[in-house]
Structures are given as structure tokens and as C-alpha cells.
């Protein structure tokens, strides 16, 4: 007998410590998708995605753009009648997807997420001048110029620090993160 956990079990396990109730309690009412402000850009609605996870449709879920488009507004969480932490489910799927190195081509989400985590692990804080250029060319040259103009403005007003900030005891912090996220290979790289 195959004792490896199914995709559904893996996702459930990864969500074990979240605030919400397990996704097995979803009644497929669609409150989340009805509420979602960015649902029109998603190829599957959040409710649909929960159904797909419960059906163990791993490849279809990992090929979906839904969770990369989640804006983390947490409106679905507030309204969910089953108290499922849907926004956190989206984060879980992002982590899983990066962990398995399996996500749709051409999405800025995975690149952004990976850059962000690496940057946090290297300095302990977010630093926009490094974060932005890493994925900004996805919008083409015009997009880059627009962003650069905004960034310069912010820099002049003192809204963006000139030098990357660093926190104390970075090693402890990295070890801590390594315990939490399965993408621990990133921790190694960052060192």
C-alpha cells in the first residue's frame, strides 16, 4: 500500500497550524469567490480550487494561476461561513508550488515571491530597490521606466532607504524561518 500522503493531505497538513478550520469543512457555498475582488483574473475560483484539492487534482491545481493572483485582502476570510482561512490557503499553495518548483510559465508571482524571500533571508528586511528590478522587466521597457520614475520620487521624499537595512542576529532569524517554511533550500542559498 502506498503510504505517501496524498496532495489533499499534504495541503491539509501544511495548513494545520493556521487559524481557520480545515478545508474539509468547506460547504462549497462560493462566498469566497463571490467576494473576491480579483476573481475575474483567476482561471479557477477559490471555491473551485478547494474542490480540486479535495479531489487530489494536484497537477491542475499547480497549473492554476488562482493563488498567484490572490491580493491577500482577506475579505473571503472575514465572510467564510465555515471559518476557513482561505487567504492562508493561497499562501500555502504558493509555498507548496515553489517547494515543488512547479508553477505556470510567465507569472510574476513565483519570481516575486522567491526574490522576496531570498531578500528577507539575506538582510531580515524588505528593500525595494533590490526587490523591484528583479521582476520588473516582465512589464517591458515602458513599465520599467514608469516604475523607475516612481521610485526616484519616493527616494527623494525619503520613502525608500538608500542602503539595504539589516537586522541583528540574522543567523537565528534564518534558522527560525527554516523551521517554518518547507522552502528551506532557499535558506541555504541565501547563506
Amino acid at each position, binding site marked *: 500500500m502506498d503510504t505517501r500522503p496524498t496532495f489533499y493531505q499534504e495541503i491539509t497538513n501544511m495548513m494545520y497550524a493556521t487559524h481557520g478550520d480545515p478545508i474539509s469543512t468547506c*460547504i462549497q*457555498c*462560493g*462566498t469566497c469567490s*463571490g467576494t473576491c475582488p480579483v476573481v475575474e483574473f483567476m482561471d479557477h475560483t477559490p471555491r473551485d480550487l478547494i474542490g480540486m484539492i479535495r479531489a487530489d487534482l494536484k497537477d491542475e491545481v499547480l497549473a492554476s494561476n488562482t493563488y498567484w493572483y490572490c491580493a491577500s485582502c482577506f475579505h473571503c476570510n472575514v465572510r467564510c*461561513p465555515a*471559518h476557513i482561512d482561505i487567504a492562508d490557503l493561497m499562501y500555502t499553495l504558493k509555498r507548496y508550488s515553489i517547494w515543488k518548483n512547479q508553477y505556470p510559465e510567465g507569472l510574476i508571482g513565483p519570481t516575486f515571491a522567491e526574490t522576496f524571500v531570498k531578500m528577507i533571508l539575506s538582510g531580515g528586511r524588505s528593500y525595494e530597490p533590490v526587490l523591484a528590478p528583479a521582476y520588473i522587466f516582465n512589464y517591458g521597457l515602458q513599465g520599467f521606466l514608469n516604475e523607475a520614475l516612481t521610485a526616484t520620487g519616493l527616494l527623494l521624499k525619503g520613502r525608500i532607504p538608500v542602503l539595504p537595512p539589516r537586522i541583528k542576529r540574522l543567523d537565528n532569524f534564518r534558522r527560525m524561518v527554516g523551521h517554518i517554511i518547507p522552502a528551506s533550500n532557499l535558506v541555504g542559498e541565501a547563506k
Partner: protein
Amino acid sequence: MSEKVGVYICHCGANIAGVVDVAALSHWAGELPDVAVARDYKFMCSSLGQELIEKDIQELGLTRVVVAACSPHLHEATFRNCCKRAGLNPYLFEMASIREQVSWVTANKTVALEKSKALISGAVHRVIHNQALEPIIVDINPNVLVVGGGITGIQAALEIADAGYHVYLVEREPSIGGHMAQFDKTFPTLDCSACILTPKMFSAGTHPNITLLTWSEVEKVDGYVGNFTVKVRQKARKVNTELCTGCGICEQKCPKKVIDTVFEAGMGLRKAVYTPFPQAVPKYPVMDVQNCTFFQKGTCKACEKFCPTGAIDFKQEDKVVSFDVGNIILATGWDLFDCRRIPQYGYGRLANVYNSLEFERLSNAAGPTGGKVILRDGVTVPQSVGIIHCVGSRDKNYNPYCSAICCMQSLKFAHLVKEKTGAQVYNFYIDIRTPLKAYDEFYQHILETDETRFVRGKVAEVTDAARLPGEEGKLIIQVEDTLIGKQRRIPVDMVILSAGLEPRHDAKEVAKLFGIGCSADQWFIERHPKLDPVATMTEGVFVAGVCQGPKDIPLSVTQGAAAAARVIGLVNRKQVSLEPVRASVNAEQCSGCRICNNQCPFNAISFLVDKGVSEINPALCQGCGTCVAACPAGAITGSHYTNAQILSQIEGILEVELGQREAVPA
């Protein structure tokens, strides 16, 4: 002292035997001191199991019996009767719960066996100290109190009154009839609600065996099954009911108009002196002192001037009446979920969002619009109507339970809207639940004939903020149509929220008043959810209708009648035997400190001034044990719970050596 104890261990099929090694257990029990025989059997509660015990009592001369099986809650009475049949006093029997407290709570066979041994050892030690007791026989007062004059209470009252017993029907509002009187049609057959209800109201109002106490509330309940004393506060109507003929002139002449938030659900007006609706029973009006011009400003008295019989009595005060009853039926009903708690549905903010009771009044031919379904502006007929199911129900943010009536109610609304306006109707549902007789037929009928669009999805929000063309001036319902997996925005003119049922806001206090329990949702708790749905854990107090949990009219009527049947059965017996578990004071040890006197929740303890000691009235005592614990001299003993019994049981439990085990992971 040599008692002969028989120990019987039940397999309960695989319920116990699947976890506990019953053979080893019965072998071990056979070796205990004083145990004459120990046996295990598949089902002790079966007639064969009981015969086994009876045979042993007679043939082996057992003087004590211990059964290790389920909870005493379930089968203590069964085995007590079994002992009685074999000639053994039923109180010389003891039960050890090795199902609820052992096999159902662990899968670990080692600890299960150890704990079973401990419980049996405790029971054996205790049973030796048990004393033979005789039940206390008391008379039953044939009068009955029914609290709540909705359809459930009316049904119960009529059944009991027809059986020839006297009923006091207490209702908080000015008229009986309850929520059903507010409805226009009733599902699934669309009977006119008033047509089927008012004859029953009239019967209840005129029945010689029914004393109607409307505009009244129960204040105090004392006593026990068969002998309750009830105090009821009759709020001042400011109308002398002996003179009033119910002509309605006072109501006509009253110049003060008030929004009726109770009967008309805020949709219509009433006067300051009023009967809630023309068919009200009793016909006597009540005066709303908060809004009466005379009471607020000191002038007016129009009602008094015009009353042809001089029945208006501004000086009338609340009256507290007291009477004795033998049994009580609670049928206190429900409150509607307050839709304001879900701000995204816009109720109370967007004018044309209605709750279900408001729509009932809107569609009622006797309602404020004469049955015309129109928007709040009072003229516009809606072209499209959205009906939202499960509002406040099946939602952990509000009420987690299903309110049971909303699906059918929403289908009824869909039909009524279509019939009265021809509007396009949308039903937004999560699941359609039509489980009772002819209910699904009604659903099929709506599907076939009414052109109602069914959208499967819980509505995310109702808004008046137009975003797309065609949405201006409309209410937009934003929802995921889960069957196509797409978010939709559906513009409509009117939204009806099918709000759920909630326990009465004061259900907890009422439960306390009558000495019964409330569930976590605050519905009254029945004795057994399946097999004893109208009795409660308090003898002589019954529950019926929605106060016990959400249900529709047919089920409420059924429960009302069921509770009445239970009461009639009890009253017919004329006497009831009470458990002889009672406290008694040892006069020689009593110092007369009177600490116990105020502790007793049943007022059963009185102080004998001449003897200088306290005394307990065994008929009032319920054996709760409060005084036993309170007595500083240890002068009070609770029979069947004596110190000797409890201490020896603890000793017995501790005698069994429990093995070391790992800490249970949190």
C-alpha cells in the same frame, strides 16, 4: 457482614467487547471479595441478559447486583426493574459505566481494562453500603401550565383541555396566535395561514377548560412534578376585561399612531391602545403606556371618553396571580435572526432589502399593503426579486445550525412574488433542503411552472453601487454561481433575506426559571434527541415546538400534541413515584446554625424554632446534595449518596493499581 454480590459485564455487541477484554474482566471480578458470581454476556439489557440476573438472584441468593455496561442514564432503570422482579430491592443495585467512560473514549486495550477494573471495584465496594429504599409516592395535580400561545402551545392546550383537564395558557403578547398569525400562506400546500389558525385560536379562547392569561409572563416556579406552584405576572392592560366588549372604538379614536415592530414586523402602524390584529384572541385591547399620549403628556383620554362601557382603566396595575399545576409545557417559540448583523446584505441600510417576516406581512392580504408586493416607496411593483437563503444560518460567523424552514419558505416566497407581480425571481441557495412530506413536490412545482432562476451560491454582498451598465438604480447581488464557477452580478429591484430562526433572546433565563437546560445554541434540551424529544431532564417539564430547535408548523403541532399526550398520560396515573434520593437531618447532630436553610434551591428546609433544629420536607427535597455539603456539623445525610457509599466507592477505585503510562499528547 457477608453480602453476596453478582457482577455482570456487558459486551454491548462490539461497543464494549471491541476494546475491553470482557472475559478477563469477568474472571478478575469473580475473585473480588464478597463477589459470589461474575459473568459476561453479549447484551445484558436484552430479555435473556436480564433473565440471567434474575435467575442468579433467586438461585444463588444474591443480595447485591453490579452491572458494568453503559451509562446509568440509559439502563439503570432497566436493571433496577430487573432486580425488583427477582425480589431484590432496586436500590441494592449499582451500575459501572464502562462504555461511555471507557470503551468509547479510548482504543487502548490495556488502559481500558485497567479503568474498567477500577470502576467495577468502586461499584462493588459501594453496593455493599447501599441501603434498601422505597420510592416516594406523590399525587399529581391535574392542572397544566402551557407557556407560549403560538400554534404549538395552542395545540398542546387544546389536546389537554379536550381530555378533560384544566390548562393555564400563558402568552407574553396581547393575543395568542404567535408567528403563524403573521403569515399569509403556509407551505407546501399554500393554505391560508389565518384560515387554519383562527379556528384553533377561537377554540382555545372559549374552551371551558382553558384559562387564557395573555399579556402575562411567568415569574416564579416552585415545586416538583405533580406539584408546581406558579406565579404569573399579568401586565396591566389598562382595560377592564370584565367590562370590555372588544368593540374596537378605543382603537379607532386613539389619535396616536405607532410603528408596530412586533406583529407587523415594522411594516405597519398601530394605535397606542390596540389589538394586534382583528382576529386577536382575546379580543380585549392593551394600552401601550410608553406611547400613550395620556401617560406621556397627561392629556387626551380619548379612549376613555368614547368607550361605551367605561372599560378603560388608567389606574390598573400589574397583577400577580398564583396557582398550582402538576405539569408544565414550554412552547416559547423563536426570534427572527437580526439581518443587520450581516452588514454586506444591506438590511436596514438599503430600503428594498426585506427580511422574511417583513415579506410575510407585505404579501399578507390583511397586511399593511393589503397583500400588494410593492417596494418601500409604496407604489412601485418590482420587476425582479432576489431571494437569499441561509441568512444567518449555516454560518459559523452567526448561527452554525440549519434553520430548517428557510428553503421551503423561500420557495413559497418565490411563488408568491411570481403570482402577485410576475417579476423575475432568483433564488440564491447553498443546498435546497425539502425533506418532509410533499415538500419536494412543491420544489418540483416551482421548478416546472414559476420560471424562477435558481443560482447555487451563497450571496457575497448586496450593493447599490452600480459598476456595469444596467445596474443603475438597482440592487446588485454579487455571488459566485458555483455551478459554472463564475462570479455574477445580478441586478434586482427587491431583495428578500430568508432569515434564520433563533432561540428567544431570554431563552437562558426561561430555562433557569423552569429548571431545564439549554444547548450551546440556547435551544432547550430534550431528555433524549431521538427517543424522548419532548420531555426534559426535569420531571414534569416538557418542551415543544421551535423552542426545542428549528422546525416548521407540522412538526411544531406534532410536538405540541406529543407533549400533551405525555402530560395526559402522567395526569391519568394520578400519582407519580419519585426517586427516594432525599436528604434528612440528624436532629441530634444539628446545631441549628441554619446555614442549610438558604442554600436549598427548592425551599425544602425549614427551621423548627421550638426544637432548635432544621428539618427537610422530603416531598420538596430533590436530593441535589447542596445542604449535605453545606452542613458544617455533617448532620445531613443524602440517602443513596451517604458518606459511607461515596468513600467506599473511592476506596474501591483506588484499590486497583493503574499502570504507568505516557502522558497524553496535547
